[in-house]
């Protein structure tokens, strides 16, 4: 062992000091020769004769060196170098093959790495805080299908001071904060955090201090509420001024003192957020004023809660402890007996889950679609590998004479396999590098597509050690799959068979080889599965879009106005909106304008219990809208009238319901003029129905339009805040309108942040982002699968057919007609395709059920999709089989036979 090490080190030295080694060898030789000559001359031999004798003793000097040098070399390493050299030459001789091979693999590895890096960013990457594995996410189990991860403030406060298993329990929530600066008010990405937030995340501030529990009390520290800012914000807002600590920031009309700056690497506990301002949770009532959610107490579900476990505590212990503390906590904080009854009936209890990667609600939305996409990627990689392997196998068959010659010249099978492996490893390496190179680009695009609607979020998809290891494993497995089988196969036959290669005797044997056929059939089966999956997802998406929203999204623009923090309320506010609407209407491209509290498909829901006095309550979605809303949205008014500006609170509360609500509340009776009662706890409010409108979808495109009630904005009690969204129907490009809206906003309400304009079609697209990304990727992968399969099949079959040129020549010479030959070759090739298709069909029928939950209005065994997929694969397989068959028909028998 020690000896081997010694040898290895000396060789390593020799490798790096090659020139010195050569010089030393030459010197040693020269010295010996000189000594020898000296002796010969001393013994009385003539100089010339002595020279000749010396030369004879040593022979060729370069051979001498070669022999010594060999001793000092790494034999296997030098062989490897030679193999790489040779392989590069071989690959460069067939650039087409090399290109296709690299491209195929780049696609496979690239797609997998991309999707994995997204999964990594969303699900796996630990938070950049010390000992992130000690963090836990807390949730609430209430007998529902899924745990709930939003806590009411009182429940969190009940948990916050319990330290049995947690050193700290902390809560946080995203908050859009309006910061007043020199050039107007700006919307800044912020986070409300509870007192122990920073203690639990254990990250030291760059400057000043972090927020501590004392900051999270009523009124905060004696010096007023503090705010911690991010390094980014410090740079942008304060130009990295070192005296930033102690400065005041006007946030949502409240003066806060900057107490600390967090370093760039700190992102809080939500991996997708990059908050710039951290404000104490206790400040929420102050910031959000009368609309604050803290006041909703046990009824406001909004906080994400996490904890850092005590040293030594396990997740199981934490889970058990919070579970058993549940009853105590609800008895402590819940004052309403009704609520308590609900909790007890549903076996309310807290749970603790691993929180090393932090918490983001997007995880629940995207983990399953990403899983499905990942599976498709795996399929593509496998397909790429099989494709390459069968191409290489076909090439190996064509290279039999070359390999035979090399075997006959004394190459061992091991050396040949090694060289062939080096060849495929080279392909694999280049393919992987190409795949990795495009991966960040693709994942960025993908992230934008997925998170399009969540503007201020970002998934960190950068390459880290996990992605790297994954890519390495994927590529190594791929290269082994690609390289080893063909290499073993190509060298498997005995030397005798090899020597005879190219002769007719081996060809019958060749045709019977099963492995390539299995590979081809498998390829087709896999491609069929991918195509079926893509077909199902795509047709589901198309059906979703075709299903319609109940209104016309084309030409509809939404302008979000953040009016929360300005003082106008009540009638003056309505006057402001009316004025703004009129001015917008005067823009040349605008046909109508209205306002709405909630824009459909933005994940905002407002629901109330309504009844018509028969004791039965109906959960009804609500929206508060301005006059002319239904005309602007193109929702038909089926009966009754629209709202108008005269529907003020003094004229009695009015309501318009959609057909679904009319059916649910009144069945077949006419709702017009009837009274509807709203139950909100003990409070009762009555409305008069003045109109019935068509059904429009509310929460998402998937669910049918729910029973919906529309209330006039002019009778709004301000319960939900003063912010409305202007709904504008227009013709022509939206650019001028956006400018007009901005200048209108600055001239009429200078205190509010710039209004944000979003086309309705974009909102719809974004609400379907998961479906769109899945369908898009699936179609992309399916197209790739079809191309890869076509290329692979064609390549393999073309090689196989070319090898039979001789046989075909003989057949034709013996009288076979061209059509017969074409049919024979075609049928033989097509039979492989048939087997593959049936195999794929069976697996696809079994497997498509996994997609069922992603599908809308589409059966997992949709016959059209299946038929179309089979047809497209059959076409491709036929084309790939027919071309070589046609070429074989052009063979001239005489030339073919003489050729050998």
């Amino acid at each position, binding site marked *: 062992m*020690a*000896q081997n090490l*010694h*040898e290895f080190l*000396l*060789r390593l030295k020799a490798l790096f000091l090659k020139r010195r080694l050569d010089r*030393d060898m030459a*010197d*040693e*030789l020269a*010295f*010996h020769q*000189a*000594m*020898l000559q*000296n002796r010969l001359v001393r013994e009385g031999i003539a100089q010339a004769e002595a020279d000749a004798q010396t030369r004879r*003793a*040593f*022979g060729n000097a370069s051979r*001498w060196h070669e*022999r*010594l040098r060999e*001793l*000092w070399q790494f034999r296997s390493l030098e062989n490897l170098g030679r193999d790489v050299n040779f392989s590069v030459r071989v690959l460069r001789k067939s650039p087409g093959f090399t290109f296709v091979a690299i491209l195929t693999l780049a696609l496979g590895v690239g797609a997998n790495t991309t999707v994995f890096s997204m999964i990594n960013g969303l699900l796996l990457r630990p938070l950049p805080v010390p000992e992130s594995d000690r963090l836990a996410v807390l949730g609430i189990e209430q007998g529902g299908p899924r745990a709930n991860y939003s806590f009411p403030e009182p429940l969190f406060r009940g948990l916050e001071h319990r330290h049995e298993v947690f050193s700290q329990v902390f809560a946080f929530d995203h908050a859009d904060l309006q910061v007043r600066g020199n050039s107007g008010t700006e919307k800044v990405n912020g986070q409300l955090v509870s007192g122990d937030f920073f203690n639990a995340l254990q990250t030291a501030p760059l400057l000043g201090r972090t927020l501590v529990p004392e900051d999270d009390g009523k009124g905060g520290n004696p010096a007023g509420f503090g705010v911690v800012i991010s390094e980014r914000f410090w740079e942008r807002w304060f130009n990295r001024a070192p005296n930033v600590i102690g400065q005041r920031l006007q946030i949502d009309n409240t003066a806060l003192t900057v107490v600390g700056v967090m370093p760039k690497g700190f992102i809080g506990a939500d991996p997708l957020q990059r908050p710039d301002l951290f404000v104490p949770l206790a400040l929420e009532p102050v910031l959000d004023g009368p609309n604050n959610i803290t006041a909703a107490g046990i009824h406001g579900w909004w906080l994400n809660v996490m904890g850092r476990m005590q040293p030594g505590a396990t997740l199981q212990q934490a889970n058990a402890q919070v579970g058993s503390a549940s009853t105590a906590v609800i008895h402590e904080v819940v004052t309403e007996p009704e609520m308590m009854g609900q909790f007890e009936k549903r076996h309310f209890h807290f749970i603790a889950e691993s929180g090393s990667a932090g918490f983001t609600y997007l995880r629940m939305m995207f983990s399953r679609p990403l899983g499905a996409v990942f599976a498709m990627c795996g399929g593509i990689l496998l397909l790429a590998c099989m494709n390459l392997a069968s191409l290489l196998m076909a090439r190996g068959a064509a290279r039999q004479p070359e390999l035979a010659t090399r075997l006959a010249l004394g190459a061992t099978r091991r050396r040949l396999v090694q060289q062939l492996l080096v060849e495929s490893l080279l392909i694999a390496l280049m393919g992987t590098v190409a795949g990795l190179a495009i991966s960040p680009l693709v994942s960025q695009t993908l992230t934008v597509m997925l998170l399009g609607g969540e503007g201020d979020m970002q998934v960190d998809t950068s390459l880290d050690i996990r992605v790297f290891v994954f890519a390495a494993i994927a590529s190594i497995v791929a290269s082994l799959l690609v390289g080893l089988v063909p290499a073993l196969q190509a060298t498997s036959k005995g030397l005798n068979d090899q020597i005879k290669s190219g002769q007719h005797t081996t060809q019958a044997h060749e045709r019977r080889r099963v492995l390539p056929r299995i590979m081809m059939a498998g390829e087709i089966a896999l491609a069929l599965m991918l195509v079926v999956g893509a077909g199902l997802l795509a047709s589901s998406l198309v059906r979703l879009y075709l299903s319609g929203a109940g209104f016309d999204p084309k030409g509809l623009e939404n302008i979000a106005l953040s009016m929360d923090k300005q003082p106008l309320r009540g009638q003056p506010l309505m006057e402001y909106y009316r004025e703004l609407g009129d001015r917008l209407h005067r823009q040349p491209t605008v046909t109508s304008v209205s306002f709405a509290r909630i824009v459909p498909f933005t994940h905002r829901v407002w629901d109330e219990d309504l009844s018509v006095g028969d004791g039965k309550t109906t959960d009804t979605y609500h929206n508060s809208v301005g006059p002319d809303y239904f005309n602007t949205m193109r929702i038909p008014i089926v009966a009754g009238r629209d709202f108008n500006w005269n529907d003020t609170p003094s004229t009695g509360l009015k309501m318009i319901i959609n057909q679904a609500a009319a059916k649910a509340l009144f069945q077949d009776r006419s709702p017009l003029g009837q009274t509807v009662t709203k139950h909100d706890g003990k409070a009762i409010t009555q409305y008069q129905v003045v109109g019935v409108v068509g059904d429009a979808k509310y929460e998402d495109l998937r669910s049918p339009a729910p029973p919906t009630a529309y209330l006039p904005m002019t009778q709004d009690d301000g319960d939900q805040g003063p912010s409305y969204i202007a709904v504008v129907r227009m013709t022509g490009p939206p650019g001028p309108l956006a400018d007009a809206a901005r200048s209108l906003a600055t001239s009429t309400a200078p205190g509010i942040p710039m209004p944000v304009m979003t086309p309705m079609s974009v909102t719809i697209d974004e609400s379907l982002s998961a479906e769109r990304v899945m369908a898009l990727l699936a179609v992309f992968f399916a197209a790739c699968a079809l191309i890869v399969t076509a290329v692979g099949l064609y390549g393999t079959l073309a090689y196989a057919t070319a090898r039979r040129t001789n046989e075909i020549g003989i057949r034709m010479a013996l009288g076979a007609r061209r059509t017969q030959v074409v049919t024979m070759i075609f049928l033989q090739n097509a039979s492989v395709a048939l087997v593959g298709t049936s195999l794929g069909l069976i697996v696809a029928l079994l497997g498509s059920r996994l997609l069922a939950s992603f599908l809308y209005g589409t059966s997992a065994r949709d016959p059209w999709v299946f038929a179309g997929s089979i047809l497209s694969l059959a076409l491709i397989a036929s084309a790939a089989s027919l071309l070589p068959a046609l070429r074989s028909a052009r063979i001239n028998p005489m030339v073919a036979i003489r050729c050998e």
Partner: protein
Amino acid sequence: MGQITDSGELIQGTLEMLVLKALLRGPLHGYSVAEWIQQTSQQMLKVEEGALYPALHRMELRGLLKSKWGMSDNNRRAKFYELTTEGQKRLNAEAQRWARLSSAVAFVMQAS
């Protein structure tokens, strides 16, 4: 391979043993090793250069010898080889093996 002058071949591995023996008295360069073996064997063993140097290098790689560059008697740069502890151990083992082998051969040849 080394050579026995009456055209018998040196038994494999024997050359290495002889080289180790030659170096037992102190560091020598390749030429002196060959010369010493030739003289000590009464000119019966002639060591060929083509075999000597690969053997020296191989033994150096294996750690039986170490080498350093120095000045020869006639003031030329020469590579001197020296026994390592490992080499000394090997020499002892080889010498014992050789003694056993040669006496065994002698027994056989003297049998009547």
